[in-house]
């Protein structure tokens, strides 16, 4: 069986791991999270120029690496392990996925070009916190050859800093859904940073006040299905990041409990501690299996392969399982670190907060289980 990384995929994973472990250390994370921008421009440029990871899924004809979601997931796992503060998820997992699924060739040439040059981008679709088409509350109307977009978007990852935006809007008085791509500085686009509990990933509100767009900006005016696919692809990426976090808090905990001595022996030798750690490992490994499978399915879905129809199910299996696994692991890590786990100084709280933020983003476990229940029971 070949349900394992190829040599090339292992190389990508290891490159990401060694680079990110080095640059996204505790000090760097803390520096970045204290700013409104939320990341270091220099680090983002290094990710783009030295690793070229912004190009992972961009087809070769546009100058990208032409790889797929298995490779992207390998990178995202490491992004999660090192809580990298960079607009990677927004640019590559959200915006590039949208461009891959729904943009025409001219739009892809333009916007992939910007991303390859180190530009950032994101996807804005929900106005009410629902993670599917019903969440789209912004509206558009046609005015001759033009489209006028009005409405609000919430929970937009890196929305206040992105250079480009992909936005969803529903037809005023109709039932069509459209996707547009536009420069973030388009007239009428108002962006507001919203401070968040998890400081390591920034969110913004975006308001469109009569934003005038043209056919050049329209990606699709029949976008319900493409949007669902884009969100599912991004969900798989986010699950990969969560899985990486689950693994990292486990590693941190094992290391800490082996060093920490109480009652004349390392606390890692107590069964009460070992059993919790074993459960953490079990969750991390099960998460890994779920995420890798979903990554293969995501790739199949992108190229319309035979198993592509499983995307919705695979994404929900991965996201529902990993959301709870990461949060439990982060909570257990905090507990097993004892008093120091509760301090600002130790990194555990960064993971604990990221775990909850990621659990909610793109639908929590209950939401994804209900999606599965619909497939199974209705």
């Amino acid at each position, binding site marked *: *069986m*070949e*349900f*394992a*990384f*190829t040599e090339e*995929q292992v190389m990508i994973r290891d490159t990401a791991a060694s680079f990110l472990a080095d640059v996204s250390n505790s000090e760097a994370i803390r520096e970045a999270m204290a700013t409104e921008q939320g990341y270091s421009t220099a680090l983002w440029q290094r990710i783009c120029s030295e690793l070229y990871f912004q190009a992972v899924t961009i087809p070769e004809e546009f100058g990208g690496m032409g790889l797929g979601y*298995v490779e992207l997931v390998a990178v995202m796992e490491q992004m999660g392990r090192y809580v990298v503060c960079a607009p990677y998820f927004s640019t590559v997992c959200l915006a590039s996925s949208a461009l891959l699924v729904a943009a025409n060739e001219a739009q892809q040439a333009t916007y992939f070009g910007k991303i390859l040059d180190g530009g950032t981008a994101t996807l804005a679709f929900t106005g009410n916190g629902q993670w599917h088409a019903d969440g789209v509350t912004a509206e558009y109307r046609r005015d001759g050859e033009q489209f006028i977009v009005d409405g609000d978007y919430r929970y937009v990852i890196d929305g206040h800093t992105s250079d480009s935006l992909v936005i969803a809007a529903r037809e005023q008085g109709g039932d069509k859904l459209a996707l547009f791509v536009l420069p973030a500085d388009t007239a009428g686009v108002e962006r507001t940073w919203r401070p968040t509990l998890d400081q390591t990933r920034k969110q913004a509100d975006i308001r469109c006040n009569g934003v005038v767009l043209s056919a050049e900006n329209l990606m699709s005016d029949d976008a319900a299905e493409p949007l669902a696919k884009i969100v599912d692809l991004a969900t798989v990426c986010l699950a990969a990041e969560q899985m990486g976090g689950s693994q990292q808090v*486990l590693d941190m905990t*094992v290391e800490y*409990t*082996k060093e920490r001595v109480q009652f004349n*022996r*390392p606390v*890692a*030798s*107590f*069964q009460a*501690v*070992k*059993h919790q*750690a*074993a*459960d953490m*490992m*079990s969750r991390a*490994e*099960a998460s*890994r*299996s*779920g995420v*890798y*499978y979903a*990554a*293969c*399915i995501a790739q*199949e879905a992108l190229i319309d392969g*035979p*198993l592509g129809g499983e995307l919705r199910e695979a994404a*929900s*299996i991965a996201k*529902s*399982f990993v959301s709870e696994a990461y949060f439990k692991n982060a909570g257990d890590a905090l507990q097993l670190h004892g008093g120091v786990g509760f301090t600002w100084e130790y990194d555990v709280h960064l993971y604990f907060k990221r775990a909850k933020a990621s659990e909610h983003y793109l639908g929590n476990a*209950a939401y994804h*289980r*209900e*999606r*599965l*229940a619909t497939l*199974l*029971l*209705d």
Partner: protein
Amino acid sequence: MKLSFSAADEQFRIEVATWLEENLVGEFAQLRYRGGPGDEHMFPEERKRWEQKLAEGGWTCVGWPKEHGGRGCSIEQQVIFHEEYARAGAPGHVGHIGEGLAGPTIIAFGSAAQQAKYLPGIVAGKELWCQGYSEPGAGSDLANVKTKAHFDEQKQQWVINGQKVWTSLAHESDYCFVIARTDPDSVAHKGLGFFLVKMDQPGVEVRGIEQLTGTSEFNEVFFDDAVCAADDIVGEPGQGWAVAMGLLGFERGVSTLGQQMQFQNELNQVITLAKENGAASDPVIRQRIAEAHAGLKIMRYNSMRTLSGADDGSLQKEALMYKLFWATWHRDLGELAMDVMGPEAEMLDGGPYELSRLQSMYLFVRSDTIYGGTNEIQRNIIAERGLGMPREPRVTIKPQ
């Protein structure tokens, strides 16, 4: 990373499915979905005949090398065989201990004479085996072996005394592989021997243990001067532990995918029932069914990862956590089944204690987190071998 099987393997899948379709008929039709865990006591004679039917078709020991009478199937083909076997609802193998444990041990560690003597009976589905590892009081501490074996120089044979427990299908078995202490002064895993013991002899007594399901598929086995020929010890005296454990590192768990197909059959029963009785509209039940479905799929992906890993006997983390994961999942499925049944879960169909399949499953799955190493022991193994956490200090309590 790829997920699909080759065209040749898919052809093999059709071959397996077709054979099962054509042969699981007549007297064997009643065996569909029977004889699995918790149901192993059912239809013993019919299932023995089924085992021989399988052998006629060449469907026993499919993963064994051809020179030992197996089919020499690749990992992929073994997976496919087990999946299709379970999908067809074919009955639990009465020969699974011989095929999965005794045979592979004899292939790996046995002499040519032992291989010639014992393997054909397993392949033919005619000689059944049971496993003499566990002892009363030893629990998950398998090395705590008190059964003794000494060599009678005069008669040139081994003489075995002691007791084994939780011995599945001992009452149906022709042979038992027994771990016994060859060096009376030894402790733990040292000084053991691995013996191939004939069950039908005066010194062996089998007593059924009644389970909380009201049925019994496992037993106590008493050895009272039971004998075993000089050349029926596998490996050297004193090296029995290495024989008993040696295989486990290479056991890649191909059959786990078949086990999951059985789980899928059970989950399907629960889903069908939930749709019929309206439980499927209960939001909490919906969540739990979805969670069970996700867990089962993850189990499958986890097995695929294990089977894709290095074939060098190294311990992979996903393989280490597998028992804990599936046993806990299966236990939860039993509870879910009862909760989907609602008040009807308490009602028996008849007889003094005649359980439906789901009722029986609900009770039986409580053993899954106990046998083969309890969840607690599994967590120790995961922590120590998977995470490199230190052992607890061992305290030796002197016997009173």
